């Protein structure tokens, strides 16, 4: 979570060079373009050279073709969009559950000391269990049903929701709390009208991290136990050494992950705007 908060921080130049005749901006853009072109060119050249078997390194073109073909022709029992829908369904359910439980738990931990003390030992223990280590129990408890993937997504996303909500709640301005107390607000009003709004930026940052972790955990779980989903698609591609399918699946997974984050960022911005307008 640190990195995402940092990514937004303002980046100042370390030093200013006396630029060459070409504007420094143009030169840097050129460098970036050259870098991408070089990487792609290297990939194309390596694939075309025949140094590596096609089975190991298909060309970008093969990957694009596999992607397009998979939209029409099923692989591993379903087309790409069907696999994607299956994954997204599981993700949404597990993610919604993690947010719906994690945010209230984080608020409670921030507000009620006894609750915090009682919950912390479990939280600190479970935090260190890798989400995918739940896969065996997910399989034992739920078989191949929807419950297993939900458990995995939940275990991946829950901690980030709780920690960020808790930190946000603890950082609430004490004066606000005291003012509300003086004016006679009860616990419920304090949590809903003071802690929640003040923690909201932190909560939204946590939710974005949670979404990325949950999505990744789901893909990991689908690699192990599933009969559909994009994770299943790429592991089946690996089984039959269809490397273009594997790479096309990876690209899809990355792209959808980006879309999820973009959507959450949109929601975050909208909430922020509504807040300022209301205030």
């Amino acid at each position, binding site marked *: 979570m640190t990195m995402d908060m940092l990514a937004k921080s303002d980046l100042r130049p370390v030093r200013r060079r006396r630029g060459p005749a070409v504007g420094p901006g143009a030169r*840097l853009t050129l460098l970036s373009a050259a870098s*991408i072109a070089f990487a792609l060119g290297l990939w194309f050249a390596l694939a075309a050279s025949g140094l590596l078997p096609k089975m190991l390194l298909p060309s970008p073109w093969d990957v694009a073709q596999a992607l397009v073909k998979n939209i029409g022709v099923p692989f591993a029992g379903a087309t790409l969009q069907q696999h994607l829908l299956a994954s997204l369904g599981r993700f949404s359910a597990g993610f919604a559950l993690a947010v719906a439980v994690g945010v209230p738990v984080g608020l409670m931990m921030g507000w009620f000391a006894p609750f915090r003390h009682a919950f912390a030992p479990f939280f600190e223990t479970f935090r260190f269990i890798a989400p995918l280590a*739940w*896969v065996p129990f997910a399989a034992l408890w739920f078989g191949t049903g929807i419950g297993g993937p939900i458990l995995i997504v939940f275990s991946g996303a829950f901690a980030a929701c709780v920690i960020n909500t808790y930190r946000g709640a603890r950082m609430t301005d004490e004066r606000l709390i005291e003012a509300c107390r003086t004016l006679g607000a009860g616990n419920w009003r304090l949590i809903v009208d003071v802690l929640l709004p003040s923690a909201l930026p932190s909560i939204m940052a946590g939710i974005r991290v949670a979404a990325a972790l949950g999505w990744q955990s789901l893909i990991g779980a689908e690699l192990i136990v599933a009969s559909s989903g994009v994770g299943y698609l790429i592991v089946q591609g690996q089984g039959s050494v269809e490397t273009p399918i594997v790479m096309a699946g990876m690209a899809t997974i990355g792209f959808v992950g980006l879309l999820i984050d973009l959507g959450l960022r949109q929601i975050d911005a909208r909430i922020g705007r509504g807040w300022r307008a209301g205030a």
Partner: protein
Amino acid sequence: MAAASPLHRSLLGAPVIGGAAVVGFLIAWWVSAKSFDPMRIPQPGDVWDAAVQLATTGYAGGTLAQHTLQSIMLAFMGFAVAAGTALPIGLAMGMSRSAEAVFGPIVAFIRPIPPLAWIPLAIIWFGLGDGAKIFVIWFTAFVPTLINTFTGVRTVDPTIIAAARVHGAGPRRMLLDVILPGAAPLIFSGLRVSLQASWMALVAAELIGAFFGLGRVLMTAAQDIFPGMIVVAMAAVAVCGATMTWLLGVVERRCLPWLKVTP
């Protein structure tokens, strides 16, 4: 329930309440486990037996010590490779706009793909051995360290850099005495994220295919429907992960004695 001001830490109650909660949980497990299907919820006795078996006679091809050692060694190797590549590139990107322009777009392309999605490709490329795991860990641990190093360098106070330059610091002294110490707190938080991610990725990779290691124990226990052993393996995963994070915290306090580190 409503303490006078719940936001004030009442540390006195913490161990008592926490301890009571844990004991309560264990008793609840003990009492209720008998009424559940033992194939789904293990009884505390089963877990103990499994722990003894794993520690002494071994399970899934080795004892607890062997599996744990293998997993920890691999995680550290992958982490070392990732940190060893991400640190120099991150420093270069932070100190030079050109390096940023060269590496930035490539990182931006690779970053959205979840590291675990590399596992099938790693298996195609490197098989089920150690190479595939180190590759996956590298992809997992690379980005957090890189981004934090980059940001750390960029957020070093420009006044300090200017002062060092005015006093005639060369590139070497600039790097060692100004940039690195200035960026160190962020670099360490990047390393911490990377280390935790390495461990997670390793367990995942071992679950999907391995001959040895804690992930292998988990998977074998799942196939044998041996819930007691699953709990033992999960506990081992958690203990190792926590220990590693703790060790890095110790190193961090050693390296950055001037900072009050909040874990």
